[in-house]
């Protein structure tokens, strides 16, 4: 295991690396997404400011769409542009472009729209409480064993809530679209995770007006975390239509204050859990979960977020009698989408908080309860999938040892008796399925391609983007190590749909796990063919090169998942983790701080340990923000402004982090990107509970929320 340096680090540090807003094309003009400032209603009248000459602006609305006004991926239910009824604040109504950015801004600020307002559901809790708001996918996992609860069993029930979370990628969304009249083609350059989704979107909106669409990603993608999975489809669609109408390149880069209002966020959740536990054995005998997500205005990604959420909702426990009900609820807020974890952080917040609640009811250490019920070798998940190793138990044992949890658990209780400010320690355990859920990877059929040039340079073509996770360095490293070929002669080519095959979207912790391992297979195939040193082979067989190689993902036939019952192999391989969080609570100001986090993960073999560590560090801090500060204070969050009212962790808030990778079985790299986001929030919540004895069923634990909770109880 080596940690070679990243291929793109130097240019990113000195600022020469190009992000979408750094590109300029001749004759380029600037575009703006004009969006609804109404939660629900009909558009009655649009008035443009008179002091501007409308001839100088390119303006498009739904009537200008030559193709179909429906965003094709992921769930085709959302229009690119509002036709009549606005369904949520921030929904795009028009695209507007002008050669001068400043004039464009003045113009759009003065546009007035009259709406006929309809009743709007914008209060998240109100939406989540009312089952009649359910729409789209509904999932039931029914593994009830007709077990009647015995009278001595302890019933524990509670409802857990999580709020929106903003991805807050530092680079806002942006695209440049260029229309070529002669070739009737459109080229889109942008910041995105899924070039082939964007391609479908542009084809859909443009219809038969064009014959070719090429999507390329910018050299740099300034963070995404899921936020650039589906919104870029709309943005690219509108930019393309503007470019087509203007016959000029159009650049749209969102300002932060617009980005935070109109793009997708993490789904708010309401998860109700009921358990029965045998107080003699401390075994959880029955588990019932009602898992609900607020999808926002349209379904888009929500059905698949729901699938993953449900398949992680039961946590890392061996419970035989299980019933899970998963639903989506509709509100008049922007559609929620992908965000690192994808339904799993909500699931683990609930189940891991609930485990502490049961422990409280049984009056035992939450560690003891976890140890009694944890998934072990040969145990079955409620989906019937059998666990082959003691993955999660090994992670937990190691993290307990490292953090000195047992000692601190008692020590802090004593400390707290004599001090106004409190110390606490909490645990959580979790897993994350790698790749698409269920049969997803079978359907995707990802393809990868490599070329070997005349000078033995190896070029890797995959549609997976490097948005900061270091994927292009890691993938090149995997190929270089398998081929025994120098890393500086092995590189991933910036994804461009005209030459890069469709290796699926950059999501679901699948880039290294699915695509990287597929590239390793292809490299082995090449190695077999050349039998020895690649440089030498290319020299001695020079006429054969350049040569192209490709490979398609072949699903494991033993992996079976039933989409109706949700039973079977939800994910072929899981990553596992456990953590311990130590907190400090300042009683007089209701302020909770995370002091230190210890975490142990089983992600198989990390390819580049430093890059892997960096992924965990970043994920942990995002999870800390989720637990403590990140919150849309204004219920009507269309009025949020940006980083002044959405509080992101800074250098001063960063806790100490102790990260260790262990590996239990797999000798390959498994998914990593998302798992560190899944589990710290409940551990922080549990530590607060340990510190104060106050059980709060909701995050973030802002001083305001803690105060309200204490006030409400007294």
């Amino acid at each position, binding site marked *: 295991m080596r*940690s070679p*340096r*990243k291929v*793109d*680090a*130097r240019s*990113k*540090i*000195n*600022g*020469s*690396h*190009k*992000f979408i*807003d*750094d590109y*300029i094309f001749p004759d380029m003009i600037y575009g703006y997404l004009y969006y609804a400032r109404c939660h629900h209603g009909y558009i009655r009248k649009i008035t443009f400011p008179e002091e501007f000459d409308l001839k100088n602006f390119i303006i498009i609305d739904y009537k200008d769409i030559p193709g179909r006004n429906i965003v094709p991926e992921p769930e085709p239910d959302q229009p690119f542009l509002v036709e009549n009824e606005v369904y949520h604040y921030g929904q795009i109504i028009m695209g507007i472009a002008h050669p001068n*950015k*400043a004039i464009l801004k003045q113009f759009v600020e003065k546009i007035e729209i009259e709406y006929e307002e309809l009743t709007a559901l914008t209060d998240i809790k109100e939406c989540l409480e009312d089952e009649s708001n359910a729409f789209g996918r509904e999932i039931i996992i029914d593994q009830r064993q007709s077990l009647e609860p015995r009278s001595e069993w302890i019933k524990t029930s509670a409802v857990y809530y999580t709020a929106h979370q903003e*991805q*807050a*990628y*530092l*680079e*806002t969304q942006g695209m440049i679209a260029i229309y070529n009249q002669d070739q009737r083609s459109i080229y889109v350059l942008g910041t995105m995770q899924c070039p082939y989704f964007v391609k479908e979107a542009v084809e859909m909106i443009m219809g038969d007006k064009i014959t070719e669409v090429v999507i390329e990603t910018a050299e*740099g*993608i*300034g*963070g*995404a*975390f899921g936020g650039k999975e589906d919104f870029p489809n709309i943005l690219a669609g509108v930019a393309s239509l503007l470019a087509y109408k203007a016959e000029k390149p159009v650049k749209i880069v969102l*300002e*932060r*204050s617009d980005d935070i209002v109109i793009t997708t966020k993490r789904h708010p959740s309401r998860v109700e859990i009921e358990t029965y536990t045998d107080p003699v054995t401390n075994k959880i005998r029955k588990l019932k979960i009602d898992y609900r997500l607020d999808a926002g205005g349209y379904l888009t990604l929500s059905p698949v977020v729901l699938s993953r959420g449900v398949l992680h909702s039961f946590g890392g426990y061996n419970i035989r009698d299980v019933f899970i009900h998963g639903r989506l609820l509709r509100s008049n807020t922007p559609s929620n989408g992908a965000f690192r974890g994808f339904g799993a952080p909500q699931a683990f917040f609930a189940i891991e908080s609930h485990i502490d609640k049961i422990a409280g009811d049984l009056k035992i250490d939450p560690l003891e309860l976890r140890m009694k019920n944890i998934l072990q070798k040969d145990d079955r998940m409620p989906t019937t999938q059998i666990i082959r190793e003691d993955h999660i138990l090994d992670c937990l044992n190691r993290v307990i040892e490292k953090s000195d949890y047992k000692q601190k658990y008692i020590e802090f209780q004593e400390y707290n008796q004599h001090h106004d400010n409190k110390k606490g320690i909490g645990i959580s355990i979790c897993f994350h399925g790698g790749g698409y859920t269920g049969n997803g990877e079978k359907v995707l059929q990802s393809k990868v391609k490599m070329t070997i040039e005349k000078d033995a340079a190896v070029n890797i073509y995959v549609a997976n983007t490097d*948005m*900061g*996770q*270091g994927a292009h360095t890691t993938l090149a490293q995997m190929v270089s190590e398998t081929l025994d070929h120098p890393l500086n002669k092995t590189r991933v080519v910036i994804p461009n749909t005209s030459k890069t095959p469709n290796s699926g979207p950059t999501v679901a912790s699948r880039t290294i796990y699915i695509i990287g391992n597929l590239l390793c297979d292809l490299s082995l195939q090449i190695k077999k063919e050349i039998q020895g040193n690649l440089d030498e082979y290319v020299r001695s067989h020079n006429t054969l090169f350049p040569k192209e190689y490709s490979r398609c993902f072949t699903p494991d036939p033993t992996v079976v998942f039933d989409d109706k019952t949700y039973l079977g192999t939800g994910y072929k391989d899981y990553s596992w983790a456990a953590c311990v969080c130590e907190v400090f609570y300042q009683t007089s100001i209701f302020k909770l701080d995370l002091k230190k986090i210890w975490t142990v993960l089983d992600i198989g073999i990390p390819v*580049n340990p*430093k*890059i892997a*560590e*960096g992924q*965990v*560090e*970043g*994920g*942990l*801090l*995002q999870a800390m923000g989720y637990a403590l500060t990140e919150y849309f204070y204004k219920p009507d969050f269309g009025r949020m*402004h*940006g*980083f*002044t009212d959405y509080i*992101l962790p*800074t*250098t*001063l808030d*960063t806790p100490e*982090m102790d990260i260790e990778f262990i590996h239990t079985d797999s000798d390959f790299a498994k998914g990593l990107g998302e798992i560190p986001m899944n589990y710290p929030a409940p551990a922080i919540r549990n530590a607060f509970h340990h510190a104060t004895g106050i059980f709060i069923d909701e995050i973030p634990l802002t001083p305001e929320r803690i105060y309200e909770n204490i006030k409400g109880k007294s």
Partner: protein
Amino acid sequence: MKISFNINGRNVKLDVDPMRRLLDVLRDDLELTDIKESCGEGECGACTIILDDKPVTSCILNAVHADGKKILTANGISKTRIGEILLDCFDQTNSVQCGFCFPGFYVTAYHYLITDGEPSLEKIRYALSGNICRCTGYKKIFESVIMACERLQEGS
């Protein structure tokens, strides 16, 4: 209004609306794209430059503020000896992820190196507290700056 300033060692004279954001003048007129815009309200530090001797966020300054001043950006810093050492430290720790915040961190950390340079985690956390990074969790950024402080101390 005519303004003039020195940027990365180069003298420039411009005729601009003095109330335009300095960030826009640098990025759009001078095409200095090593200065990034993220929040646009002085919160995140992505657009940090050194103006005379202070790190400032150029998104909340008007162009007129630059008149008669000396500006240093990430690109300019990378050509200095200390800048090269710092860059190598950021690179060596694999601290960079998406990199969008990095020119800003680079500028702020460089300013810390030339004005203080003590390899103290607490001081460095404080010095960098005006820069937000969403990817890294800051840990490797701290390590890099400490490493650069130490290398400079050894070298001097």
